[in-house]
């Protein structure tokens, strides 16, 4: 690389460094503000631990549901051409742009106590408002696109000709999927799973409308901030950011291998 180009890149890099600092600084500041002892004491609080575990559990449940129904959807989007495909792909992506509190209202319109589905599920003993199932569907709604899109891209990256050859070697479509397509795409799927799970953990707006209680961690942070102020909310925020970073590191590690 010649000197003129190097100078050019350094100029660009300087501009970019400002942005990187803008993200890294607040996060580091928050983490460093709470020494390990404080974090440990925060973790010991029953309310905090319950909120964090509930957040993890609900997000995992949402991810499980998405796996069951989202993998087939992703494969169909990757391989089949059908009328309305563009529309279906668009619908999957919509939740990214819908304001989260509006998404919560929309879910309440369908799963609320007076709504049709809400009543139908109530007969089976499942309540959504101010209950764990409500948290799960709120997380599912806002984070589904991450899993479906990652899996779809993973499936799309598997050469169709590999599937064709497997067929000529005696494999049915179902066998081809499990023995060729899925093993080749699973890292993308896994990366989507972690991404979706992490996005579910971080959801606040939709959850707070559907189920303020039982409190998930982001709601707990908000509650403490509103009721008692920054000093009281900060240790919980530090703890949650630390956990998010851990999840994030796993995500990067998996995603990196998927690209190979």
């Amino acid at each position, binding site marked *: 690389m010649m000197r003129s180009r190097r100078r050019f890149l350094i100029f660009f890099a300087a501009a970019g460094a400002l942005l990187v600092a803008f993200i890294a600084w607040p996060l580091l500041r928050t983490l460093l503000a709470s020494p390990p002892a404080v974090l440990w004491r925060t973790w010991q609080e029953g309310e905090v631990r319950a909120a964090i575990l509930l957040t993890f559990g609900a997000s995992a449940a949402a991810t499980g549901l998405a796996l069951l129904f989202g993998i087939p959807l992703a494969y169909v989007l990757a391989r089949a051409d059908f009328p309305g495909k563009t529309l279906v792909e668009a619908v999957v992506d919509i939740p990214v742009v819908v304001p989260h509190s509006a998404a919560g209202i929309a879910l309440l319109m369908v799963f609320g106590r007076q709504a049709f589905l809400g009543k139908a599920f109530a007969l089976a003993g499942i309540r959504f408002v101010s209950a764990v199932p409500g948290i799960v569907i709120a997380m599912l709604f806002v984070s589904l696109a991450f899993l479906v899109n990652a899996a779809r891209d993973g499936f799309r990256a598997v*050469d169709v*000709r*590999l599937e*064709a*050859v*497997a*067929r*000529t*070697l*005696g*494999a*049915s479509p*179902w*066998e081809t999927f*499990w*023995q*060729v397509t*899925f*093993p*080749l795409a699973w890292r993308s799927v896994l990366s989507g799973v972690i991404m979706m799970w992490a996005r579910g953990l971080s959801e606040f707006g939709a959850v707070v409308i559907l189920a303020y209680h039982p409190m998930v961690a982001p709601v707990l942070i908000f509650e403490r901030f509103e009721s008692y102020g920054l000093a009281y909310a900060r240790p919980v925020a530090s703890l949650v950011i630390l956990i998010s970073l851990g999840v994030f590191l796993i995500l990067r590690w998996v995603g990196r291998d998927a690209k190979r």
Partner: protein
Amino acid sequence: MQSVDGESLRLEGLTVAAGGFRIANLNLEVAAGEYFVLLGPTGAGKTVLLETVAGLHRPLGGRVWLGGEDITAAPPEARRIGFVYQRQALFPHMTVAENVAFGLALRQQPRWKRALPGPGRRARRRASRRPEVAAMLALLRIAHLADRFPAHLSGGERQRVALARALVLRPRLLLLDEPLSALDPQHREALRAELRRLHAELGATVVHVTHDFEEAVALGERVAVLHRGRFEQVGTPEAIFRRPASRFVAEFVGMRNIFAAEAEPGNGRTARLRARGLIAAAVTARRGAVHFAVRPEDIVLARHPLDSSLRNVFQGQVAAVEQRGALAYVTVAVPAPEGEPLPFVAAVTAPSLENLRLRPGETVWLGFKASAVHVF
């Protein structure tokens, strides 16, 4: 090694549209054990045709018969047709031996087990140690690669694995889609020899698709030239090389000396071809406006008038000499009574070029037999 028992293939009025290509109403018969080459330029729909025979596309019309059985509606997994793509069709998550054992492993498992990811892998490992796999790896001279992954193989090695994977299931028909095109010249030549040997040893029926005429000549017992979704000519490579049925075929197989002419009756079976007033003798029954062609290597050059056994002898000026590896192509401009000189290209070997000391501007004699003139 057990033989493969190739069966005959018959296409009856096959019509397919897929991937932007359309093939309409195609008929073809390939005999059991025959090595058949489908020759055509890129974009002629050759791959789509093969994929349809393998059952990967549903034809819009017509039937596919394999050994007397109508397989038009059979799914690909029930056809026992081997398929080798141009490249990148090895399973990258399996070793070479597991790739080859893929089909065998499927056959061994009960149906319900084959549909799960875990047991499939174990069965594949077990099957990869079976003697058929070892024998097939040995036959293709890749036994030493058994435990490698495809990413670590050369292009030629990969194609050997793809061949082994298809052949180990003893297919009733083997389809090869440009199997040599992605290889570099050295590997290409070696694998071409391998294909010839395998066909001779195993007796498989092979349909081989290529855009390379040399490949077709080297391998095919019969060749079909596909152009715009239909066959322009079907016959032995020799027949296509010597007697192309159309201008497209002639150019595609590398004929150089193609001229428009008027064919007039000559004496006996010959005709007089008048091209810009120049008259050449040819063996043909055609009359009127025709094209004629002479292969460069059928044209003899000399510094002195040629002896009289050649019916067509002309004098001209050397216009250009082009070295191309083992051969040199000499362009000789032969003055025509009406219009511009006719440029004839003759192929000579390097030693002859040296002996004749041909240089642009020099006068030479060129000659060719009346039977070497192809009229179409």
